[in-house]
């Protein structure tokens, strides 16, 4: 268990600035997700923390020890790779025991620790198998056991779930989280999957073009995205652009949108599609809500959720409706949309 801090770290590859002055504190025992599209620098940052690569500028510290020049084998980290990187010439047991054996740990002590780790990932009986005899999910558990059995100070996960199919991925999300809690290890998790980041982590850092654009707990990051990028990358959002007025913005079509916590001079706002409601005819709309008239352009039925694209005099809004059994509008229906001022988030940057 350890606290990891990254201070003003930059790293360039040739002319390409992969990381540009990034500072993050990874709390002790926390589960931190580094989220970003490919090329955002999240993997570069993970490799710098691991010690596979060294920063051009800035400091990296684990528990206060400066480690930015320490090579990976001396950093006492555990890492899980995207394709697991299990040693093909070794049994599951030897894979998990590798880190202990290179440290010269006594054989009997090692066997007990390996068995405990295998039990924790529920692979207690598969120790003699070879990696190629395991399913994808089992391989992933072996990789995880191998990474934490050496009691590393930090556990680094590089897109660990991306190679699994969807159903297994959801299972493994819970499993990974359970094991992380059980050993209480500081975990840094790289992903491009926003849902994974939201469901698993205690904190999320969103990276874009080598910069940290937003950081915070998942709910806060989701509810108050600071930029258009954060709003659309973490979840989905309608971005409305207009001119700044008192208490909100005025759209090109003349509609005024009120914002609960307006920012002076702000010309854009974001509204999550699930926050917009379609009012049934005659039903009252809560006072103070933003309201728009529109026509349904398209409808996408996904079973539990119906997605509508609604044209509100030139502004196209995406609206998610729970398929709760009530009568739902259809294409070309005229509808009234409304949402609360609190659900309208001012957007100050790209």
């Amino acid at each position, binding site marked *: 268990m350890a606290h990891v801090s990254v201070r003003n770290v930059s790293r360039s590859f040739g002319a390409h600035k992969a990381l540009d002055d990034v500072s993050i504190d990874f709390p002790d025992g926390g589960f931190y997700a580094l989220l970003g599209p490919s090329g955002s620098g999240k993997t570069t940052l993970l490799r710098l923390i*691991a010690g*596979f690569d060294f920063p051009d500028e800035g400091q990296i510290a684990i528990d206060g020890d400066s480690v930015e020049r320490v090579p990976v084998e001396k950093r006492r980290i555990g890492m899980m790779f995207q394709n697991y990187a299990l040693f*093909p010439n070794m049994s599951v047991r030897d894979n998990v025991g590798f880190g202990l054996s290179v440290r010269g740990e006594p054989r009997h002590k090692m066997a007990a620790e390996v068995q405990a780790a295998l039990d924790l990932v529920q692979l207690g009986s598969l120790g003699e198998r070879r990696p190629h005899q395991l399913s994808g999910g089992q391989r992933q558990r072996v990789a995880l056991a191998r990474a934490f059995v050496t009691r590393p100070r930090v556990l680094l996960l590089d897109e660990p779930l991306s190679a699994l199919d969807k159903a297994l991925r959801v299972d493994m999300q819970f499993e990974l989280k359970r094991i992380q809690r059980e050993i209480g290890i500081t975990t840094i998790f790289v992903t491009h999957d926003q849902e994974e980041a939201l469901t698993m982590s205690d904190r999320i850092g969103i990276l874009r073009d080598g910069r940290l654009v937003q950081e915070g707990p998942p709910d806060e990051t989701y509810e108050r995205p600071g930029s258009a990028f954060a709003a659309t990358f973490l979840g989905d959002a309608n971005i409305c652009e207009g001119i700044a007025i008192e208490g909100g913005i005025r759209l090109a079509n003349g509609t005024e949108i009120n914002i609960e916590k307006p920012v002076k001079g702000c010309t854009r706002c974001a509204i999550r599609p699930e926050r917009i409601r379609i009012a049934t005819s005659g039903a009252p709309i809560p006072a103070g809500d933003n309201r728009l008239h529109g026509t349904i352009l398209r409808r996408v039925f996904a079973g539990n959720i119906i997605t509508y694209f609604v044209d509100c005099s030139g502004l196209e809004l995406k609206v998610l409706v729970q398929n709760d059994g009530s009568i739902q509008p259809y294409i070309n229906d005229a509808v009234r949309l409304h949402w609360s001022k609190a659900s309208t988030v001012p957007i100050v940057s790209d």
Partner: protein
Amino acid sequence: MTRLLEWLGRGFLGLLLAFLYLPLVIMGVMSFNRSPFYQLPIDWSTTWYSQLFANAQLMSATWNSVTIAVTTTIIATALGTAASIALFRNEFPGKRILQVLLFPPIAIPWLITGTAMLVFFFWVGIGRGPHAILLGHVALALPYVIVVVSARLQTFDPQLEEAARSLGANQWQVTRRITLPWIMPGVIAGALFAFAVSFDQFVVSYFLATPGQATLPVEIYAAIRKGFTPEINAVSTIIVVISMALMLLTARFFSFGGER
């Protein structure tokens, strides 16, 4: 029509095998024929084998050949494997040029290489003799080892090395426990190549040998020039049997290039 093609194909294969093996088989059979003039019917005997073992010159040449080939194999395999791993792991200026320069020695005629080595060795004071032969053989064998081991390394996932390092393994532990086990079939194949290059080597050995310190191929050539004796058949048969046994054994335990 297809049947005809099939038979043609089989016939061709048969001819090919006959072309490859018939001379060897005849040589083997004749080494057991008492008549030195290939007279038929065969009068079975092991007389040439007893004569061979009594021939001090051929025996000492065989011993020279085996010693030099084994030493060449050990040195060339160790150096070549280390070089392949270094080329695989590191990026450095001139790496591509170095890799390209490794191939031409395989293509340059041995006659030229032999002459060049003879001239060079005299110029730098190494001269001729078993040590010069060894040096020449290592130089000849090295590119083969590097090519074969590098080919095997192409199938190695470098992330395995990273995983091992992240678990606390130092460079040597990574190499010994992760990289070497994976490339071992390539290393064995490279060693076989090195052994074959050295053991079969005539031209370079001929240039670098001193009288009385020759290798087996050089000695066989000298013996044939003096007049052919079936002892040569006997020693050649022994060599063929040992080399083929070695090859089959290796092929049995390792599938070259493929996944294990």
